[in-house]
């Protein structure tokens, strides 16, 4: 026991055990979560021929082939007369058989059962899918548009949603409850039926084919972010507010100096949510944007999903690239996230 304590310093045994279990569970969960992602990356590195016939293998591979008389034949590792050799499959035959021959003596064929032989593969990673996908669209223009919409919108959203959430959470007023319910009600109506009137409205403003319909409404708060912030604001104790009021602070100062600093995790959350929404949203841009120069990345991605041809490998390649900025953002946002509230700020 003493040795144990000396080895592990101050760490308690059951704490270590608990952390171990937690890590194990998280690891198991991560594997499950990552499997589709692994397929995504693997698909992005295959070419359409591989996707057609060999979609479920994680490692991009192609059959090894040999050239005989100008034609390509697949190579197999075959067992013939107890011996294992590498032979080319010339032709399939009825009954699950196939004709194999050595590449040096293509006329001497031997008939063997096909699925008892092992096909030979070589690694075949198609890195060029990425440049191809990037090259088939004005990637950086789209990226620029996406960033414009995302970050300006995020600023507008934070600004307006903080104000509005503050109003809904920190003030007593007759109509505020009703108005809050109306705020929520605005997201209860399916957006499909608002689309046409909204389009006509933006068209009258002359905003169709600009990025404005995607950015400007963000400056007027939206239900999701206001709701979340309001919930968070309402968990912050009132005592600090009261103290500040006694000191003569006006409501705006209370918001800026008391509330917002304590609501950092919530602010980070809504920023992340907004970022993801704007980053991946293709529906609204497609309805309101006209020329390709104004498209966002998500819209560009959609064009690969055409009626008769789905360029899955290109879709996956662009999708992989598109998750990099949000991941980086999220990774670093966690710093702000976890600088959470350590104390409730109330003494006595």
């Amino acid at each position, binding site marked *: 026991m003493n040795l144990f304590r000396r080895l592990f310093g101050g760490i308690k045994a059951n704490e270590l055990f608990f952390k171990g279990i937690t890590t194990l569970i998280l690891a198991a969960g991560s594997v499950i979560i990552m499997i589709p992602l692994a397929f995504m990356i693997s698909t992005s590195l295959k070419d359409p021929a591989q996707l057609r016939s060999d979609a479920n293998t994680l490692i991009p591979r192609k059959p090894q082939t040999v050239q005989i008389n100008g034609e390509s034949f697949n190579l197999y590792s075959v067992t013939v007369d107890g011996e294992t050799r590498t032979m080319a499959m010339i032709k399939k035959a009825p009954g699950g058989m196939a004709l194999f021959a050595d590449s040096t003596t293509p006329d001497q064929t031997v008939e063997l059962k096909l699925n008892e032989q092992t096909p030979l593969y070589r690694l075949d990673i198609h890195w060029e899918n990425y440049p191809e996908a990037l090259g088939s669209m004005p990637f950086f223009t789209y990226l620029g548009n996406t960033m414009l919409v995302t970050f300006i919108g995020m600023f507008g959203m934070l600004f307006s949603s903080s104000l509005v959430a503050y109003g809904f959470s920190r003030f007593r007023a007759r109509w505020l409850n009703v108005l809050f319910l109306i705020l929520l009600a605005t997201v209860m109506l399916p957006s499909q039926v608002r689309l046409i009137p909204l389009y006509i409205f933006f*068209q009258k403003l002359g905003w169709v084919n600009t990025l404005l319909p995607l950015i400007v409404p963000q400056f007027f708060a939206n239900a999701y972010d206001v709701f979340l912030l309001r919930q968070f604001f309402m968990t912050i104790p009132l005592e600090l507010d009261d103290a500040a009021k006694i000191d003569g602070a006006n409501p705006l100062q209370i918001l800026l100096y008391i509330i917002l600093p304590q609501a950092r995790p919530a602010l980070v959350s809504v920023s992340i949510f907004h970022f993801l929404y704007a980053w991946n949203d293709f529906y609204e841009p497609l309805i309101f944007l006209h020329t390709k120069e104004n498209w966002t990345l998500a819209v560009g991605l959609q064009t690969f999903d*055409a009626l008769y041809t789905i360029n899955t490998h290109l879709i996956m390649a662009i999708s992989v690239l598109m998750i990099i900025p949000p991941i980086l953002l999220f990774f670093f946002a966690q710093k702000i996230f976890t600088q959470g509230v350590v104390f409730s700020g109330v003494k006595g």
Partner: protein
Amino acid sequence: MKNKLFKLMAFLVMASVLLVACGGGETAGGGDAPAGEKAKVVIFVGFGTGTDPDQVVAQEALAQRFNESHDDIEMEFLIVPVEEATERYLAMVAGNNAPQLVGLHGISTIAKFLDQWEDVTPYIEKDGYDMSDFYGPSTTLNKYPELNAGLPLGLYPSFIFYNKDAFDAAGLAYPTHDYADTSWNIEAMREMAMKMTLDANDLTPNDEGFDPATIKQWGYADTWTDGRGQFTMFGAPTKGRPTSDDYKTAQYNSPEWVFGAEWLHNGIHVDHFIPDAAGQGAIDAASGDPFGGGHVAIWYSHTWYMSEGLNELPFKYDIAPLFYNQNGERISRIHADLFTMPKTAKNKDAAWEVMKWLVAPEQIVDVCKIYGCLPARQSSQDAYLAYMQERFPGLDFDVIFTAIDYLDDPNHESWVPEWGKVNDALNNATSTIYTEAELDVPGLMNTTNDEVQKILDEYWATQ
């Protein structure tokens, strides 16, 4: 005090925004172009083919070619992915900003929006446009009694694609290329297909121990079409249309189509040579390409399949006529595509000029190359044939051109009242056929027919 000012300001801002909104909206797209400015022609692409990245680039080049040779008109292609095309188009039309042309799209889209297209007959007459070079179904399939929807651009006949390696492996002779050979019929095809359906152990449905759950290759599939399409080949009197000629009586459960439904159901769940819903989902999701992925030995499709599907296939293949049906008839579906003009668009004269340019002998072959269709002009056939022979060496192109003679008229995509609703009802029935192993097929056809009849009755009650 501060708060009251706040409120006042807010009210003013709001009011001014509303004023801008209501007052004299200058709609994007404007009126007819003032003198000296180019007329703008927007071609809306998204209802059919044309949204593939390669096609986008090719279309841009085409637009550039036009703009360089025309001083008074400027055209551009507006690409909208398929999923959003309908909403975008309708929003534009509702906002008085309809595109000048829509395309390239086919009979189904034209039927869906039938009363929105401008009838080009007056334009043809005014110009004295020579229609004699256009041949066959290209001139009839999109012409309705009150509407000629546009100048024909291209045809997509249909035929069999077959996997020669699969035939070799099964020891079968290839299907005949002779359109007159009646021994190539539905029974013969069925026998062949069953021999080419293989499970994981290379057993066929004829063998002991065949396991339908592990099928890796099916004998036959015709999945890239809808409910009406799949039944058309069985030869109902109304060919591809599930209603009577006056569109008032539902005829979905005609004896021929019931036969077809039972034949399909049998092929899927009893004989197993047709992929069921799970099988279809597998090959579609994996690769989007049943034939190219080597999953189907006999594949029935159209020429539009060729430009993307027949790329560097790892097996030998060829094309053959569709087989004769159970009544000794052959009905080989066809699609006919063109560009159309929305009625409410502005600059229709400019749109007409662009429409003519696209189908002009100088351009039509290039335009068809982008979309994979056969040019609708007699005079362009040779040039297109030469192009195809270069692109797909070794294929028997007589099969393609002769298939046109066996078209389905009424077409499987043609207009019926409440096109969307009727089609969805039929597709629901087809989905049931593909997913339910135990099924009273005639019963399903009858209930679906009642559904369609109800839709037709409701439609005619409001006319």
